[in-house]
């Protein structure tokens, strides 16, 4: 099992989502936690060279690996 932290900004974003999408995000993060199959792409940015974005039906969930921890940074709608 992975170690996962969720940034406060991601929590705020989650709270703004409608309940069905909020649940979609929680379930996606749970899949990430248990290393089940997820749809992930990599995005290099200037300050986060190894950022990943998990894709669900309606959402994009960017995260970064920092040492042994995976940090969910935010949640965006597709």
């Amino acid at each position: 099992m992975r170690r996962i932290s969720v940034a406060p900004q991601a929590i705020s974003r989650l709270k703004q989502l409608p309940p069905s999408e909020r649940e979609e995000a929680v379930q996606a993060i749970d899949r990430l936690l248990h290393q089940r199959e997820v749809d992930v792409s990599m995005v290099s940015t200037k300050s986060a060279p190894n950022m990943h974005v998990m894709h669900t039906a309606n959402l994009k969930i960017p995260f970064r690996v920092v040492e042994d921890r995976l940090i969910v940074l935010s949640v965006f709608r597709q």
Partner: protein
Amino acid sequence: MALTKPQQLNELLQRAIDSYHAGHQPEAIDLLARASKQFPKSARLWGYLGFLYAESGAGPNAVKAFRKAAQISPHSEQASLGLFHSLWQLGRADDAFNEMRRFMKANDSPNYLELLRDMLSDKGRRTSHAASLTVEEVHEVEAISASVGKPGFEPIDLDESADRLRELTHA
């Protein structure tokens, strides 16, 4: 007072970043492409240019720019990862892995190790979504990313399930 060369470079890079964040990606690319003639040995400049080319879907140009950055700064993980990802996006997996091998021969790289772990895992699947985040989203995520580990950044740690997250976010 006239700016020194490093100051001129910093000023140019800042202008390009500002332009990019304002949504003027072609102008930012043009600025850096012209500046690369003035500062051909700046790995930072080539790295930024590579990033902007990759963001705009100009894969071959991204490869060229990141390759320049990696040649100038062979121990830069950021340059190497940029080159790896842009080669990968073009379907040049062999060349991408050659770059990974080159870098890992001489450097520790937790990011490449994580990448390999995921690739070798049959539980994970990676697909390509070029430019999957908008400029505004990249901007926001970079700001959050920069705050990780700093005072005031208090993430929620999940243990064995995401139930805690569900409790915290459900009304």
